[in-house]
Protein backbone atom coordinates (compact mmCIF):
# COMPACT_ATOMS: atom_id res chain seq x y z
CA UNK A 1 0.00 0.00 0.00
CA UNK A 2 1.25 3.43 -0.83
CA UNK A 3 1.82 5.43 2.28
CA UNK A 4 -0.03 8.66 2.33
CA UNK A 5 1.51 11.63 4.01
CA UNK A 6 -0.35 13.34 6.78
CA UNK A 7 -1.00 16.94 7.53
CA UNK A 8 -1.81 18.15 10.99
CA UNK A 9 -3.75 21.36 11.40
CA UNK A 10 -4.23 22.91 14.78
CA UNK A 11 -7.60 24.53 15.02
CA UNK A 12 -7.67 27.83 16.94
CA UNK A 13 -9.78 28.27 20.11
CA UNK A 14 -12.64 29.71 18.09
CA UNK A 15 -13.55 27.88 14.91
CA UNK A 16 -15.91 30.40 13.34
CA UNK A 17 -16.72 31.86 9.99
CA UNK A 18 -13.74 34.24 10.06
CA UNK A 19 -11.37 31.32 10.28
CA UNK A 20 -13.27 29.37 7.66
CA UNK A 21 -13.10 32.31 5.26
CA UNK A 22 -9.32 32.33 5.54
CA UNK A 23 -8.81 28.59 5.43
CA UNK A 24 -11.16 27.70 2.63
CA UNK A 25 -8.17 26.59 0.55
CA UNK A 26 -7.91 23.55 2.81
CA UNK A 27 -10.88 22.14 0.99
CA UNK A 28 -8.64 21.61 -2.01
CA UNK A 29 -6.08 19.44 -0.21
CA UNK A 30 -6.34 16.17 -2.00
CA UNK A 31 -3.24 14.09 -1.53
CA UNK A 32 -2.96 13.42 2.13
CA UNK A 33 -4.77 12.46 5.25
CA UNK A 34 -5.79 15.42 7.33
CA UNK A 35 -5.65 15.55 11.07
CA UNK A 36 -7.51 18.35 12.76
CA UNK A 37 -6.26 18.99 16.25
CA UNK A 38 -9.11 20.47 18.23
CA UNK A 39 -7.48 20.39 21.65
CA UNK A 40 -7.60 24.15 22.04
CA UNK A 41 -11.01 24.65 20.49
CA UNK A 42 -13.71 25.95 22.80
CA UNK A 43 -16.31 27.26 20.36
CA UNK A 44 -17.48 26.15 16.93
CA UNK A 45 -20.10 28.00 14.92
CA UNK A 46 -22.29 26.74 12.06
CA UNK A 47 -19.76 27.68 9.41
CA UNK A 48 -17.15 25.67 11.33
CA UNK A 49 -19.41 22.64 11.60
CA UNK A 50 -20.27 22.64 7.94
CA UNK A 51 -16.61 23.19 7.09
CA UNK A 52 -15.62 20.04 8.95
CA UNK A 53 -18.48 18.14 7.39
CA UNK A 54 -17.51 19.18 3.86
CA UNK A 55 -13.87 18.45 4.52
CA UNK A 56 -14.80 14.98 5.73
CA UNK A 57 -16.91 14.38 2.67
CA UNK A 58 -14.19 15.50 0.31
CA UNK A 59 -11.56 13.42 1.99
CA UNK A 60 -13.78 10.39 1.79
CA UNK A 61 -14.56 10.94 -1.86
CA UNK A 62 -10.88 11.02 -2.70
CA UNK A 63 -10.09 7.98 -0.58
CA UNK A 64 -8.38 9.89 2.23
CA UNK A 65 -9.14 10.16 5.88
CA UNK A 66 -10.05 13.09 8.06
CA UNK A 67 -9.18 12.51 11.68
CA UNK A 68 -10.50 14.70 14.44
CA UNK A 69 -8.01 14.67 17.26
CA UNK A 70 -8.79 15.72 20.84
CA UNK A 71 -12.32 16.76 20.06
CA UNK A 72 -14.54 17.38 23.07
CA UNK A 73 -17.65 15.22 23.41
CA UNK A 74 -19.89 18.29 23.21
CA UNK A 75 -18.43 19.29 19.91
CA UNK A 76 -18.71 15.75 18.64
CA UNK A 77 -22.42 15.77 19.50
CA UNK A 78 -22.77 19.06 17.68
CA UNK A 79 -21.11 17.55 14.65
CA UNK A 80 -23.52 14.64 14.76
CA UNK A 81 -26.46 17.02 14.49
CA UNK A 82 -25.20 18.17 11.12
CA UNK A 83 -24.50 14.63 10.04
CA UNK A 84 -27.93 14.30 8.43
CA UNK A 85 -28.07 12.52 5.14
CA UNK A 86 -27.70 15.33 2.66
CA UNK A 87 -28.56 14.74 -0.94
CA UNK A 88 -28.35 17.18 -3.73
CA UNK A 89 -31.69 16.87 -5.40
CA UNK A 90 -30.37 18.06 -8.72
CA UNK A 91 -30.02 15.43 -11.35
CA UNK A 92 -26.51 14.53 -12.47
CA UNK A 93 -24.82 17.16 -14.60
CA UNK A 94 -24.63 15.12 -17.78
CA UNK A 95 -28.37 14.54 -17.67
CA UNK A 96 -29.27 18.08 -16.62
CA UNK A 97 -27.27 19.67 -19.38
CA UNK A 98 -28.45 17.28 -22.01
CA UNK A 99 -29.79 19.04 -25.07
CA UNK A 100 -32.99 17.02 -25.14
CA UNK A 101 -33.83 17.65 -21.50
CA UNK A 102 -33.39 21.40 -21.73
CA UNK A 103 -35.27 21.60 -25.01
CA UNK A 104 -38.12 19.53 -23.60
CA UNK A 105 -38.19 21.58 -20.43
CA UNK A 106 -38.37 24.84 -22.34
CA UNK A 107 -41.05 23.48 -24.62
CA UNK A 108 -43.23 22.26 -21.76
CA UNK A 109 -42.85 25.60 -19.96
CA UNK A 110 -43.75 27.43 -23.14
CA UNK A 111 -46.82 25.26 -23.71
CA UNK A 112 -47.98 25.75 -20.12
CA UNK A 113 -47.61 29.51 -20.41
CA UNK A 114 -49.45 29.53 -23.73
CA UNK A 115 -52.32 27.50 -22.31
CA UNK A 116 -52.55 29.86 -19.34
CA UNK A 117 -52.43 32.93 -21.57
CA UNK A 118 -55.13 31.56 -23.85
CA UNK A 119 -57.35 30.67 -20.92
CA UNK A 120 -57.01 34.24 -19.63
CA UNK A 121 -57.98 35.51 -23.09
CA UNK A 122 -61.04 33.27 -23.36
CA UNK A 123 -62.17 34.09 -19.82
CA UNK A 124 -61.76 37.80 -20.51
CA UNK A 125 -63.71 37.62 -23.77
CA UNK A 126 -66.40 35.33 -22.31
CA UNK A 127 -67.01 37.30 -19.12
CA UNK A 128 -66.82 40.55 -21.07
CA UNK A 129 -69.55 39.50 -23.53
CA UNK A 130 -71.81 36.44 -23.05
CA UNK A 131 -70.95 36.17 -19.37
CA UNK A 132 -72.56 39.57 -18.86
CA UNK A 133 -75.93 37.93 -19.50
CA UNK A 134 -75.24 35.57 -16.60
CA UNK A 135 -73.98 38.05 -14.06
CA UNK A 136 -72.56 41.56 -13.84
CA UNK A 137 -69.98 41.55 -11.10
CA UNK A 138 -68.51 44.99 -11.30
CA UNK A 139 -68.75 48.07 -9.21
CA UNK A 140 -71.26 50.66 -10.25
CA UNK A 141 -69.48 53.33 -12.24
CA UNK A 142 -66.43 51.13 -12.79
CA UNK A 143 -66.61 51.53 -16.57
CA UNK A 144 -66.78 55.31 -16.41
CA UNK A 145 -63.97 55.46 -13.89
CA UNK A 146 -61.77 53.22 -16.04
CA UNK A 147 -62.54 55.21 -19.19
CA UNK A 148 -61.50 58.35 -17.35
CA UNK A 149 -58.30 56.71 -16.06
CA UNK A 150 -57.29 54.83 -19.23
CA UNK A 151 -58.63 57.20 -21.83
CA UNK A 152 -59.09 60.78 -20.74
CA UNK A 153 -55.93 60.92 -18.68
CA UNK A 154 -53.86 59.56 -21.58
CA UNK A 155 -55.32 62.10 -23.99
CA UNK A 156 -52.70 64.81 -23.40
CA UNK A 157 -49.60 62.69 -23.77
CA UNK A 158 -50.95 60.73 -26.74
CA UNK A 159 -51.88 63.80 -28.79
CA UNK A 160 -48.74 65.72 -27.86
CA UNK A 161 -46.43 62.86 -28.84
CA UNK A 162 -48.28 62.21 -32.08
CA UNK A 163 -48.15 65.88 -32.96
CA UNK A 164 -44.38 65.94 -32.42
CA UNK A 165 -43.83 62.70 -34.32
CA UNK A 166 -45.98 64.12 -37.12
CA UNK A 167 -43.74 67.19 -37.31
CA UNK A 168 -40.54 65.13 -37.23
CA UNK A 169 -41.72 62.66 -39.86
CA UNK A 170 -42.96 65.38 -42.22
CA UNK A 171 -39.85 67.48 -41.81
CA UNK A 172 -37.61 64.55 -42.73
CA UNK A 173 -39.79 63.66 -45.69
CA UNK A 174 -40.23 67.27 -46.77
CA UNK A 175 -36.46 67.78 -47.05
CA UNK A 176 -36.18 64.83 -49.44
CA UNK A 177 -39.35 65.67 -51.36
CA UNK A 178 -38.25 69.28 -51.89
CA UNK A 179 -35.08 68.10 -53.61
CA UNK A 180 -37.26 66.49 -56.25
CA UNK A 181 -39.81 69.31 -56.28
CA UNK A 182 -42.38 66.84 -55.03
CA UNK A 183 -43.36 68.69 -51.87
CA UNK A 184 -47.02 68.36 -52.76
CA UNK A 185 -46.89 64.65 -51.96
CA UNK A 186 -46.22 65.39 -48.31
CA UNK A 187 -49.98 65.52 -47.62
CA UNK A 188 -50.82 61.94 -48.70
CA UNK A 189 -47.52 60.68 -47.32
CA UNK A 190 -48.05 61.92 -43.79
CA UNK A 191 -51.81 61.33 -43.98
CA UNK A 192 -51.60 57.67 -44.93
CA UNK A 193 -48.69 57.00 -42.57
CA UNK A 194 -50.54 58.50 -39.64
CA UNK A 195 -53.90 56.91 -40.41
CA UNK A 196 -52.66 53.42 -41.21
CA UNK A 197 -49.58 53.08 -39.04
CA UNK A 198 -48.37 55.71 -36.68
CA UNK A 199 -51.65 56.80 -35.13
CA UNK A 200 -52.74 53.38 -33.85
CA UNK A 201 -49.18 52.20 -33.17
CA UNK A 202 -48.11 55.24 -31.15
CA UNK A 203 -51.30 55.17 -29.13
CA UNK A 204 -50.90 51.44 -28.50
CA UNK A 205 -47.29 51.79 -27.36
CA UNK A 206 -48.13 54.63 -25.00
CA UNK A 207 -51.13 52.75 -23.61
CA UNK A 208 -49.07 49.56 -23.27
CA UNK A 209 -46.75 51.55 -21.04
CA UNK A 210 -49.53 53.29 -19.12
CA UNK A 211 -52.42 50.84 -19.01
CA UNK A 212 -50.65 47.52 -19.50
CA UNK A 213 -48.31 48.13 -16.58
CA UNK A 214 -51.07 49.52 -14.38
CA UNK A 215 -53.29 46.52 -15.10
CA UNK A 216 -50.53 44.05 -14.28
CA UNK A 217 -49.51 45.82 -11.11
CA UNK A 218 -53.09 46.19 -9.91
CA UNK A 219 -54.14 42.59 -10.53
CA UNK A 220 -50.84 41.23 -9.25
CA UNK A 221 -51.15 43.16 -6.00
CA UNK A 222 -54.69 41.90 -5.60
CA UNK A 223 -53.49 38.35 -6.13
CA UNK A 224 -50.61 38.64 -3.69
CA UNK A 225 -52.89 40.12 -1.00
CA UNK A 226 -55.47 37.31 -1.38
CA UNK A 227 -57.94 39.93 -2.63
CA UNK A 228 -58.84 37.81 -5.66
CA UNK A 229 -59.50 34.82 -3.38
CA UNK A 230 -61.63 37.03 -1.15
CA UNK A 231 -63.67 38.16 -4.17
CA UNK A 232 -64.22 34.54 -5.19
CA UNK A 233 -65.48 33.57 -1.76
CA UNK A 234 -67.91 36.48 -1.90
CA UNK A 235 -69.30 34.93 -5.07
CA UNK A 236 -67.82 37.71 -7.20
CA UNK A 237 -66.05 36.69 -10.38
CA UNK A 238 -62.55 38.22 -10.15
CA UNK A 239 -62.15 38.49 -13.91
CA UNK A 240 -65.38 40.42 -14.25
CA UNK A 241 -64.58 42.59 -11.27
CA UNK A 242 -61.00 43.48 -12.12
CA UNK A 243 -60.50 42.93 -15.85
CA UNK A 244 -63.79 43.39 -17.70
CA UNK A 245 -64.28 47.13 -16.89
CA UNK A 246 -60.77 47.79 -18.17
CA UNK A 247 -61.44 45.63 -21.23
CA UNK A 248 -64.48 47.65 -22.24
CA UNK A 249 -62.94 50.97 -21.23
CA UNK A 250 -59.91 50.41 -23.43
CA UNK A 251 -61.95 48.96 -26.29
CA UNK A 252 -64.01 52.15 -26.36
CA UNK A 253 -61.35 54.78 -25.66
CA UNK A 254 -58.49 53.37 -27.71
CA UNK A 255 -60.10 53.96 -31.15
CA UNK A 256 -61.04 57.47 -30.04
CA UNK A 257 -57.51 58.14 -28.82
CA UNK A 258 -56.16 56.70 -32.08
CA UNK A 259 -58.29 59.05 -34.13
CA UNK A 260 -57.17 62.03 -32.04
CA UNK A 261 -53.53 60.93 -32.30
CA UNK A 262 -53.85 60.60 -36.07
CA UNK A 263 -55.42 64.04 -36.29
CA UNK A 264 -52.66 65.55 -34.16
CA UNK A 265 -49.99 63.90 -36.33
CA UNK A 266 -51.56 65.17 -39.53
CA UNK A 267 -51.82 68.63 -37.98
CA UNK A 268 -48.07 68.47 -37.36
CA UNK A 269 -47.57 67.59 -41.04
CA UNK A 270 -49.87 70.44 -42.01
CA UNK A 271 -47.74 72.96 -40.13
CA UNK A 272 -44.61 71.68 -41.86
CA UNK A 273 -46.34 71.91 -45.24
CA UNK A 274 -47.44 75.49 -44.56
CA UNK A 275 -44.29 76.88 -42.97
CA UNK A 276 -41.50 74.79 -44.48
CA UNK A 277 -42.79 73.85 -47.93
CA UNK A 278 -44.95 76.99 -48.37
CA UNK A 279 -47.92 74.94 -49.59
CA UNK A 280 -51.35 76.49 -49.28
CA UNK A 281 -53.77 74.88 -46.87
CA UNK A 282 -56.37 74.12 -49.57
CA UNK A 283 -53.77 72.17 -51.59
CA UNK A 284 -52.73 70.20 -48.51
CA UNK A 285 -56.26 69.15 -47.55
CA UNK A 286 -57.25 68.59 -51.17
CA UNK A 287 -54.32 66.26 -51.82
CA UNK A 288 -54.95 64.49 -48.54
CA UNK A 289 -58.61 63.77 -49.22
CA UNK A 290 -57.82 62.72 -52.80
CA UNK A 291 -55.41 59.98 -51.71
CA UNK A 292 -56.93 58.84 -48.46
CA UNK A 293 -59.41 56.00 -48.90
CA UNK A 294 -61.95 54.41 -46.64
CA UNK A 295 -59.93 51.21 -46.41
CA UNK A 296 -57.04 53.16 -44.86
CA UNK A 297 -59.37 54.46 -42.19
CA UNK A 298 -60.74 50.92 -41.66
CA UNK A 299 -57.24 49.51 -41.31
CA UNK A 300 -56.40 52.10 -38.67
CA UNK A 301 -59.61 51.43 -36.79
CA UNK A 302 -59.25 47.63 -36.79
CA UNK A 303 -55.67 47.93 -35.66
CA UNK A 304 -56.52 50.16 -32.77
CA UNK A 305 -59.24 47.81 -31.50
CA UNK A 306 -57.02 44.72 -31.79
CA UNK A 307 -54.11 46.52 -30.12
CA UNK A 308 -56.35 47.52 -27.23
CA UNK A 309 -57.33 43.89 -26.66
CA UNK A 310 -53.70 42.80 -26.83
CA UNK A 311 -52.74 45.39 -24.20
CA UNK A 312 -55.40 44.36 -21.72
CA UNK A 313 -54.88 40.64 -22.39
CA UNK A 314 -51.14 40.76 -21.80
CA UNK A 315 -51.57 43.07 -18.83
CA UNK A 316 -54.00 40.78 -17.06
CA UNK A 317 -52.17 37.57 -18.02
CA UNK A 318 -48.98 38.78 -16.33
CA UNK A 319 -50.97 40.07 -13.38
CA UNK A 320 -52.81 36.80 -12.84
CA UNK A 321 -49.71 34.63 -13.00
CA UNK A 322 -47.84 36.38 -10.17
CA UNK A 323 -46.59 34.09 -7.42
CA UNK A 324 -44.67 35.57 -4.53
CA UNK A 325 -44.39 39.07 -3.19
CA UNK A 326 -43.47 42.61 -4.06
CA UNK A 327 -40.49 41.62 -6.19
CA UNK A 328 -42.64 39.37 -8.36
CA UNK A 329 -45.10 42.22 -8.92
CA UNK A 330 -42.28 44.43 -10.20
CA UNK A 331 -40.83 41.69 -12.37
CA UNK A 332 -44.15 40.79 -13.97
CA UNK A 333 -44.98 44.45 -14.58
CA UNK A 334 -41.72 44.92 -16.45
CA UNK A 335 -42.28 41.73 -18.42
CA UNK A 336 -45.82 42.84 -19.20
CA UNK A 337 -44.72 46.16 -20.73
CA UNK A 338 -41.87 44.62 -22.71
CA UNK A 339 -43.99 41.76 -24.04
CA UNK A 340 -46.88 44.13 -24.69
CA UNK A 341 -44.82 46.45 -26.89
CA UNK A 342 -43.20 43.52 -28.65
CA UNK A 343 -46.50 41.80 -29.42
CA UNK A 344 -48.05 45.06 -30.63
CA UNK A 345 -45.24 45.71 -33.07
CA UNK A 346 -45.37 42.08 -34.20
CA UNK A 347 -49.12 42.35 -34.76
CA UNK A 348 -48.58 45.59 -36.65
CA UNK A 349 -46.13 43.82 -38.95
CA UNK A 350 -48.66 41.05 -39.58
CA UNK A 351 -51.38 43.64 -40.26
CA UNK A 352 -49.17 45.29 -42.88
CA UNK A 353 -49.49 42.12 -44.92
CA UNK A 354 -53.19 41.48 -44.56
CA UNK A 355 -54.84 44.91 -44.40
Amino acid at each position, binding site marked *: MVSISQKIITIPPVLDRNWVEQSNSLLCERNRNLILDLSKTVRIDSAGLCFIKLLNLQCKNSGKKLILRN*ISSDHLNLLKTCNFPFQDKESPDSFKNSFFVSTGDTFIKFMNNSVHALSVLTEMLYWGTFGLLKKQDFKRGALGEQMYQLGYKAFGIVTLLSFLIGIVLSLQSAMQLRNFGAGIFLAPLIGITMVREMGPLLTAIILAGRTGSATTAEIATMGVGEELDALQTMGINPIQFAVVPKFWAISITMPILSILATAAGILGGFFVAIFYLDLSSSIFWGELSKHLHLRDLNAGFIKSVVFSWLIIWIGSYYGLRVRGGAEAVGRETTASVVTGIFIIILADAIFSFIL
Partner: protein
Amino acid sequence: MLNPLKKDIVRINNLVVKYGENTILNDISTRFYSSEIRVILGTSGCGKTTLLKSIIGLLKPFSGTVYIENTEIKDQDDPETVKILKKIGVLFQNGALLGSMTVGENVALPLQMHTNLPDSIIKEIVQLKLAQVDLPNASELYPGELSGGMKKRAALARALALDPPLLFCDEPSAGLDPVTSAGLDELLLKIRKTLGITIIVVTHELLSIEKIADNITFLSKGALLFDGPLKDALALEKGPIVDFFKRHEPKNKFHLSNTTDFFVENIK
Protein backbone atom coordinates in the same frame (compact mmCIF):
# COMPACT_ATOMS: atom_id res chain seq x y z
CA MET B 1 -67.80 10.79 18.45
CA LEU B 2 -70.03 13.01 16.33
CA ASN B 3 -73.65 13.29 17.24
CA PRO B 4 -75.78 11.89 14.42
CA LEU B 5 -78.93 13.60 15.68
CA LYS B 6 -77.71 17.19 15.28
CA LYS B 7 -78.56 19.16 12.16
CA ASP B 8 -75.50 19.66 10.00
CA ILE B 9 -74.63 22.59 7.77
CA VAL B 10 -71.39 21.35 6.20
CA ARG B 11 -70.68 17.79 5.17
CA ILE B 12 -67.29 16.64 3.93
CA ASN B 13 -67.01 13.18 2.39
CA ASN B 14 -63.67 11.45 1.80
CA LEU B 15 -61.88 14.64 0.82
CA VAL B 16 -58.43 14.19 -0.72
CA VAL B 17 -56.37 17.23 -1.73
CA LYS B 18 -53.03 17.08 -3.51
CA TYR B 19 -50.48 19.69 -4.54
CA GLY B 20 -48.78 17.94 -7.42
CA GLU B 21 -47.46 14.69 -5.97
CA ASN B 22 -47.84 15.71 -2.31
CA THR B 23 -51.00 14.60 -0.58
CA ILE B 24 -52.01 17.43 1.75
CA LEU B 25 -55.32 16.06 2.98
CA ASN B 26 -55.95 12.35 3.07
CA ASP B 27 -59.50 11.07 3.18
CA ILE B 28 -61.15 13.61 5.48
CA SER B 29 -64.81 13.06 6.35
CA THR B 30 -66.60 15.20 8.88
CA ARG B 31 -69.69 17.30 9.53
CA PHE B 32 -70.12 20.75 11.02
CA TYR B 33 -73.32 21.41 12.97
CA SER B 34 -75.59 24.42 12.88
CA SER B 35 -74.81 27.19 15.38
CA GLU B 36 -71.63 25.64 16.71
CA ILE B 37 -68.16 27.10 16.92
CA ARG B 38 -65.93 24.49 15.39
CA VAL B 39 -62.18 24.87 15.64
CA ILE B 40 -59.97 23.15 13.11
CA LEU B 41 -56.58 22.74 14.73
CA GLY B 42 -53.28 21.00 14.46
CA THR B 43 -49.61 21.79 14.23
CA SER B 44 -48.22 23.99 11.46
CA GLY B 45 -48.34 22.41 8.04
CA CYS B 46 -50.97 19.81 8.94
CA GLY B 47 -53.43 21.05 6.30
CA LYS B 48 -55.78 23.29 8.30
CA THR B 49 -55.83 26.17 5.83
CA THR B 50 -55.95 23.73 2.91
CA LEU B 51 -59.06 22.14 4.42
CA LEU B 52 -60.66 25.56 4.81
CA LYS B 53 -59.81 26.55 1.24
CA SER B 54 -61.23 23.32 -0.15
CA ILE B 55 -64.47 23.74 1.78
CA ILE B 56 -65.05 27.20 0.31
CA GLY B 57 -64.10 26.05 -3.17
CA LEU B 58 -60.82 27.92 -3.60
CA LEU B 59 -58.97 24.64 -4.03
CA LYS B 60 -60.19 21.88 -6.27
CA PRO B 61 -60.08 18.57 -4.40
CA PHE B 62 -58.39 15.57 -5.96
CA SER B 63 -61.38 13.47 -4.92
CA GLY B 64 -64.24 13.63 -2.46
CA THR B 65 -67.09 16.09 -2.05
CA VAL B 66 -68.06 19.04 0.12
CA TYR B 67 -71.69 19.90 0.75
CA ILE B 68 -72.81 23.16 2.31
CA GLU B 69 -76.51 23.15 3.15
CA ASN B 70 -76.98 20.10 0.93
CA THR B 71 -75.48 21.83 -2.12
CA GLU B 72 -72.28 20.45 -3.55
CA ILE B 73 -69.47 22.99 -3.82
CA LYS B 74 -68.18 22.84 -7.37
CA ASP B 75 -66.67 25.32 -9.77
CA GLN B 76 -66.66 28.98 -8.73
CA ASP B 77 -68.80 29.81 -11.75
CA ASP B 78 -71.44 27.19 -11.04
CA PRO B 79 -74.64 29.17 -10.27
CA GLU B 80 -75.65 26.87 -7.39
CA THR B 81 -72.21 27.28 -5.84
CA VAL B 82 -72.36 31.05 -6.20
CA LYS B 83 -75.74 31.01 -4.45
CA ILE B 84 -74.14 29.17 -1.52
CA LEU B 85 -71.07 31.43 -1.52
CA LYS B 86 -73.39 34.36 -0.86
CA LYS B 87 -74.43 32.57 2.32
CA ILE B 88 -70.94 32.23 3.73
CA GLY B 89 -68.56 34.82 5.09
CA VAL B 90 -64.81 34.28 5.01
CA LEU B 91 -62.30 36.10 7.20
CA PHE B 92 -58.87 35.71 5.62
CA GLN B 93 -55.66 35.54 7.60
CA ASN B 94 -54.52 39.02 6.62
CA GLY B 95 -58.00 40.41 6.10
CA ALA B 96 -57.76 40.52 2.28
CA LEU B 97 -59.59 43.85 2.15
CA LEU B 98 -59.53 45.47 -1.29
CA GLY B 99 -56.73 47.99 -0.88
CA SER B 100 -58.08 50.46 -3.40
CA MET B 101 -61.42 50.90 -1.63
CA THR B 102 -62.24 52.43 1.75
CA VAL B 103 -63.36 50.22 4.63
CA GLY B 104 -66.94 51.36 4.11
CA GLU B 105 -66.83 50.51 0.40
CA ASN B 106 -65.31 47.13 1.22
CA VAL B 107 -68.15 46.29 3.58
CA ALA B 108 -70.71 47.61 1.10
CA LEU B 109 -69.27 45.57 -1.80
CA PRO B 110 -71.09 42.25 -1.21
CA LEU B 111 -74.31 44.16 -0.58
CA GLN B 112 -74.01 46.11 -3.84
CA MET B 113 -73.11 42.97 -5.78
CA HIS B 114 -75.70 40.58 -4.48
CA THR B 115 -78.67 42.69 -3.43
CA ASN B 116 -80.84 45.41 -4.98
CA LEU B 117 -81.08 47.41 -1.79
CA PRO B 118 -81.14 51.22 -2.13
CA ASP B 119 -77.94 53.06 -1.28
CA SER B 120 -79.36 54.60 1.87
CA ILE B 121 -80.12 51.17 3.35
CA ILE B 122 -76.69 49.84 2.33
CA LYS B 123 -75.05 52.79 4.07
CA GLU B 124 -77.00 52.01 7.24
CA ILE B 125 -76.06 48.32 7.09
CA VAL B 126 -72.39 49.25 6.67
CA GLN B 127 -72.56 51.48 9.74
CA LEU B 128 -74.32 48.72 11.68
CA LYS B 129 -71.75 46.09 10.75
CA LEU B 130 -68.85 48.39 11.55
CA ALA B 131 -70.44 49.18 14.91
CA GLN B 132 -70.85 45.45 15.58
CA VAL B 133 -67.11 44.99 15.21
CA ASP B 134 -66.32 48.14 17.23
CA LEU B 135 -65.05 50.20 14.31
CA PRO B 136 -67.74 52.89 14.12
CA ASN B 137 -65.47 55.62 12.74
CA ALA B 138 -63.34 53.69 10.27
CA SER B 139 -65.69 53.78 7.31
CA GLU B 140 -63.78 56.50 5.41
CA LEU B 141 -60.31 55.04 6.03
CA TYR B 142 -58.35 52.89 3.62
CA PRO B 143 -57.24 49.41 4.75
CA GLY B 144 -53.61 50.51 4.63
CA GLU B 145 -54.35 53.08 7.32
CA LEU B 146 -55.64 50.49 9.81
CA SER B 147 -53.71 48.49 12.40
CA GLY B 148 -53.56 44.69 12.13
CA GLY B 149 -56.37 44.13 14.61
CA MET B 150 -58.58 46.78 13.02
CA LYS B 151 -58.01 45.22 9.59
CA LYS B 152 -59.19 41.86 10.89
CA ARG B 153 -62.28 43.44 12.43
CA ALA B 154 -63.05 45.38 9.26
CA ALA B 155 -62.71 42.16 7.26
CA LEU B 156 -65.04 40.50 9.76
CA ALA B 157 -67.57 43.26 9.15
CA ARG B 158 -67.36 42.58 5.41
CA ALA B 159 -67.69 38.83 5.96
CA LEU B 160 -70.85 39.48 8.00
CA ALA B 161 -72.36 42.01 5.58
CA LEU B 162 -74.85 39.59 4.02
CA ASP B 163 -75.77 38.05 7.40
CA PRO B 164 -74.35 34.66 6.44
CA PRO B 165 -75.44 31.58 8.40
CA LEU B 166 -71.88 30.30 8.10
CA LEU B 167 -68.63 32.11 8.87
CA PHE B 168 -65.11 30.83 8.21
CA CYS B 169 -62.12 32.41 9.95
CA ASP B 170 -58.54 31.61 8.95
CA GLU B 171 -56.28 32.14 11.96
CA PRO B 172 -58.11 35.18 13.34
CA SER B 173 -55.54 35.78 16.08
CA ALA B 174 -52.38 35.34 13.98
CA GLY B 175 -50.04 38.27 14.49
CA LEU B 176 -52.23 39.96 17.10
CA ASP B 177 -51.30 40.77 20.68
CA PRO B 178 -53.05 38.73 23.43
CA VAL B 179 -55.44 41.52 24.35
CA THR B 180 -56.59 42.21 20.80
CA SER B 181 -56.89 38.53 20.02
CA ALA B 182 -58.93 37.96 23.19
CA GLY B 183 -61.13 40.83 22.06
CA LEU B 184 -61.62 39.13 18.70
CA ASP B 185 -62.58 35.89 20.45
CA GLU B 186 -65.14 37.80 22.54
CA LEU B 187 -66.45 39.30 19.33
CA LEU B 188 -66.89 35.88 17.72
CA LEU B 189 -68.75 34.61 20.79
CA LYS B 190 -70.93 37.72 20.79
CA ILE B 191 -71.72 37.31 17.10
CA ARG B 192 -72.62 33.65 17.57
CA LYS B 193 -74.87 34.57 20.48
CA THR B 194 -76.64 37.45 18.76
CA LEU B 195 -76.85 36.10 15.21
CA GLY B 196 -76.85 32.36 15.94
CA ILE B 197 -74.49 31.56 13.09
CA THR B 198 -72.09 28.68 12.63
CA ILE B 199 -68.47 29.72 12.97
CA ILE B 200 -65.58 27.61 11.73
CA VAL B 201 -62.21 28.78 12.96
CA VAL B 202 -58.76 27.61 11.91
CA THR B 203 -56.26 28.33 14.64
CA HIS B 204 -53.58 26.90 16.87
CA GLU B 205 -53.88 29.42 19.71
CA LEU B 206 -54.56 27.30 22.80
CA LEU B 207 -56.14 30.12 24.79
CA SER B 208 -58.61 31.00 22.09
CA ILE B 209 -59.44 27.34 21.38
CA GLU B 210 -60.29 26.73 25.03
CA LYS B 211 -62.36 29.89 25.13
CA ILE B 212 -64.47 29.56 22.03
CA ALA B 213 -64.57 25.97 20.77
CA ASP B 214 -67.64 23.75 21.09
CA ASN B 215 -66.24 20.99 18.95
CA ILE B 216 -62.81 20.50 17.49
CA THR B 217 -61.45 18.85 14.38
CA PHE B 218 -57.86 17.83 14.93
CA LEU B 219 -55.65 17.27 11.91
CA SER B 220 -52.24 15.69 11.91
CA LYS B 221 -50.16 15.33 8.76
CA GLY B 222 -53.24 15.60 6.58
CA ALA B 223 -55.27 12.98 8.42
CA LEU B 224 -58.20 13.49 10.75
CA LEU B 225 -57.21 12.42 14.26
CA PHE B 226 -60.09 13.62 16.38
CA ASP B 227 -63.52 15.03 15.69
CA GLY B 228 -65.82 15.87 18.54
CA PRO B 229 -66.48 17.96 21.65
CA LEU B 230 -63.59 19.90 23.13
CA LYS B 231 -64.12 18.44 26.60
CA ASP B 232 -63.74 14.88 25.24
CA ALA B 233 -60.47 15.90 23.66
CA LEU B 234 -59.24 17.44 26.89
CA ALA B 235 -60.17 14.27 28.77
CA LEU B 236 -57.88 12.13 26.62
CA GLU B 237 -54.82 10.79 28.38
CA LYS B 238 -52.18 10.52 25.73
CA GLY B 239 -51.53 10.94 22.06
CA PRO B 240 -50.80 13.86 19.77
CA ILE B 241 -53.87 15.80 20.92
CA VAL B 242 -52.72 15.73 24.52
CA ASP B 243 -49.23 16.71 23.40
CA PHE B 244 -50.78 19.64 21.60
CA PHE B 245 -52.85 20.90 24.53
CA LYS B 246 -50.16 20.27 27.13
CA ARG B 247 -47.51 21.85 24.89
CA HIS B 248 -45.29 18.78 25.01
CA GLU B 249 -42.03 18.97 23.18
CA PRO B 250 -41.91 16.99 19.97
CA LYS B 251 -40.05 13.71 20.14
CA ASN B 252 -37.08 13.13 17.85
CA LYS B 253 -36.53 16.81 17.39
CA PHE B 254 -32.94 16.39 16.24
CA HIS B 255 -31.95 13.38 14.29
CA LEU B 256 -28.86 12.40 16.23
CA SER B 257 -27.31 9.55 14.35
CA ASN B 258 -25.41 7.09 16.48
CA THR B 259 -23.21 5.90 13.71
CA THR B 260 -20.85 8.71 13.04
CA ASP B 261 -18.95 9.14 9.86
CA PHE B 262 -16.11 10.92 11.53
CA PHE B 263 -12.82 9.33 12.51
CA VAL B 264 -12.12 10.48 15.99
CA GLU B 265 -9.02 10.22 18.12
CA ASN B 266 -9.06 10.92 21.78
CA ILE B 267 -12.35 12.44 22.83
CA LYS B 268 -11.91 15.04 25.53
